[in-house]
């Protein structure tokens, strides 16, 4: 089995799906000839030609709007927004049209499309290139919002997203694009949307994270477990909405304690919803407040201070320790 990075895994998923289903096409700024600014779409233009690997004019609203028309008329467009920081230009179309296509037409028209975008910090880039705003999409009924954390799950979840009959916002943790490689099954099996993944089982503490933070959190937990002997369960959220509250609640009912690690700002980030779901479904099992390790409620700082905004290993570790000790 080859070892792949997340970039390679996503690229492979796109190749395989376009091969398998000739209604799938990719589009976006610089995705065709250039293979995308992060090279996620490399080789697709050469293999599938300009009609199915489409460089678009520079307009995010136009991209998602045109994608919707294509999807209604029989295609399955997989669009790329160059950085999630520019995706708010698509929100009006997403909320106003994409997410409503099925409900307003009683399923006569549907919008099977995927909007991919890299998100999050860690690449020493200019302003707007480090945001984590998955909550905007997750707060939009009618969309599914997915964030993978590893090459293998990125592959499976992207296959699932493309095959899903409804619109999926697929946010890729750019910090993890090439950060590590992983043993890999390229068997064209799709994963399941709206399901968490239990990364490791444990009895004393539930930790929930996703995207680039998952990896960092996992590392901290490994050390923490080694140091303290605690038994920690780690859950990869995977789908931000519709959120799999039952898996999380089940875990918390077992452990009685939870920590959520998120890159996004605190107020109304996914951690708030996770806590609300724990409240709904497992409050009486809680032995300590659920601890949120999050970005602060400030505008994402430029990269010199970015690392103070994004949850660091010491912050995560202290949260685990405090929650266990509570």
């Amino acid at each position, binding site marked *: 089995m080859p070892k792949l990075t997340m970039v390679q895994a996503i690229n492979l998923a796109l190749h395989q799906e376009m091969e398998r289903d000739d209604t799938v*096409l990719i589009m976006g700024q610089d995705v065709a000839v250039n293979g995308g600014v992060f090279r996620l779409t490399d080789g697709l233009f050469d293999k599938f030609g300009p*009609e199915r690997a489409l460089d*678009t*004019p520079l*307009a995010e*609203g*136009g991209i*998602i*709007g*045109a*994608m*919707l*028309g*294509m*999807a*209604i*008329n*029989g*295609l399955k*467009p997989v669009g790329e927004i160059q950085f999630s920081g520019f995706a708010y230009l698509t929100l*009006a*179309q997403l909320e*106003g*049209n994409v997410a409503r296509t*099925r*409900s*307003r*037409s*009683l*399923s*006569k*028209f*549907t919008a099977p499309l995927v909007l991919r975008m890299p998100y999050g910090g860690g690449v020493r880039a200019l302003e707007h290139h480090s945001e984590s705003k998955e909550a905007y999409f997750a707060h939009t*009924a*009618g969309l*599914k919002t997915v964030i993978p954390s590893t090459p293998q799950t990125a592959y499976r979840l992207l296959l699932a997203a493309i095959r*899903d*009959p*409804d619109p999926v916002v697929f946010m890729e943790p750019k910090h993890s694009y090439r950060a590590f490689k992983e043993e890999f099954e390229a068997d064209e099996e799709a994963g399941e*949307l*709206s399901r968490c993944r239990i990364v490791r089982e444990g009895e004393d503490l539930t930790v929930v994270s996703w995207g680039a933070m998952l990896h960092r959190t996992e590392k901290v937990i490994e050390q923490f477990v080694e140091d303290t002997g605690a038994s920690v369960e780690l859950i990869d959220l995977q789908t931000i909405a*519709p*959120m*799999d*509250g*039952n898996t999380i609640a089940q875990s918390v009912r077992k452990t009685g304690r939870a920590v959520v690690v998120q890159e996004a700002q605190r107020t109304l980030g996914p951690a708030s919803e996770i806590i609300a779901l724990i409240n709904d479904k497992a409050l009486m099992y809680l032995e300590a407040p659920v601890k949120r390790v999050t970005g602060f409620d400030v505008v994402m700082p430029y990269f010199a201070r970015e690392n103070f905004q994004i949850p660091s290993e010491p912050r995560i570790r202290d949260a685990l320790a405090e929650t266990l000790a509570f």
Partner: protein
Amino acid sequence: MPSKVIARFSVSYQQILDEKGGVDEKLDPKLPDDKLLEIYRVMLTGRRLDERLLKMQRSGRVGTLPVSVGQEAASGAAALAMEDDDWFVGSYREVAGRIARGEELYKSMLIYGGFEEGNISDNAPRMLPLSIILASQIPHAVGLAYAAKMRGEKTAVLAFSGDGATSEGDWHEGINFAATWKAPVVFLVQNNHWAISTPLHKQMNNRTIAQRGVAYDIPCLQVDGNDALAVYKATKEALDRARNGEGPTLIEALTYRMLMHTTADDPKKYRPEQETEEWKKRDPLTRFRAYLVNKRIWDGDRDGELEETVKSEIDAAIEYYRNYADYKLDQPFDHQFGTIVETLEEQRAEYLKYAR
């Protein structure tokens, strides 16, 4: 500063019927009689439906409502220039156009009565639901067209917007995409001179809206939008070009919103009444009827018959709407996703407990 001219553009204006229904023989597209009669029927049905909807709104049987009175030629004749397989992408002021495509009259009542069920019609399968977010439908039209073109189909898309909507970014982005991709779309702007209370000169600095096509180097022209023949002819030619791979066209149809913006609006607050009076003379129905009479395919005797037919169609639609019971309370949950989502099913139970 002297300099060399490197590109020239012009915008032309087309009118075939004058205000009295006289026809410019050279321009007359010479449509067959049944087509002409259909245009008239569609326009009249649109007019009467609007009038009845207005009454229904006043008596609380439907909610807030835009009407298209005065603009029946701009959407009705344009829609009749389409082929069956073409896609119709409207805004919300194309009652006549929707009727032309075959939409059942009760669908409008359902929509304005607050039912999603009004949005789809088996008779008009290639028609998108009303678009309320101004100009947001323009890129959709381009996507529909791209898909058709990619599959090698000979279909085109007719997409409507208003004068005000041309100020929106989506409008610009969509048309630029269409031009760049040579997508088979015709953009028809119903320039009815007002966007709610905002007159054209507060909306833009332009002499014409048609010239916005110059920004994308696509064919663009202005037509008398209350002249059904001019609208028909321009739209037909543009749709044919689109189907032949010659790319998009922008048509500005000059027309006028004779009544309020919606039933929530009062034009007295901002619009001089004599302006409306002036436009009454250019009523698309009167003109077109005069043309039919001149051509001797219509006369006063037939008015009553047509009015009667239209009335009974509308009556039947109202009756259908009044008895409309074929709906599920929890439909929002049925059509949220095409797959079962566990947490949503939990919410459905809660919803059903209280919905009634």
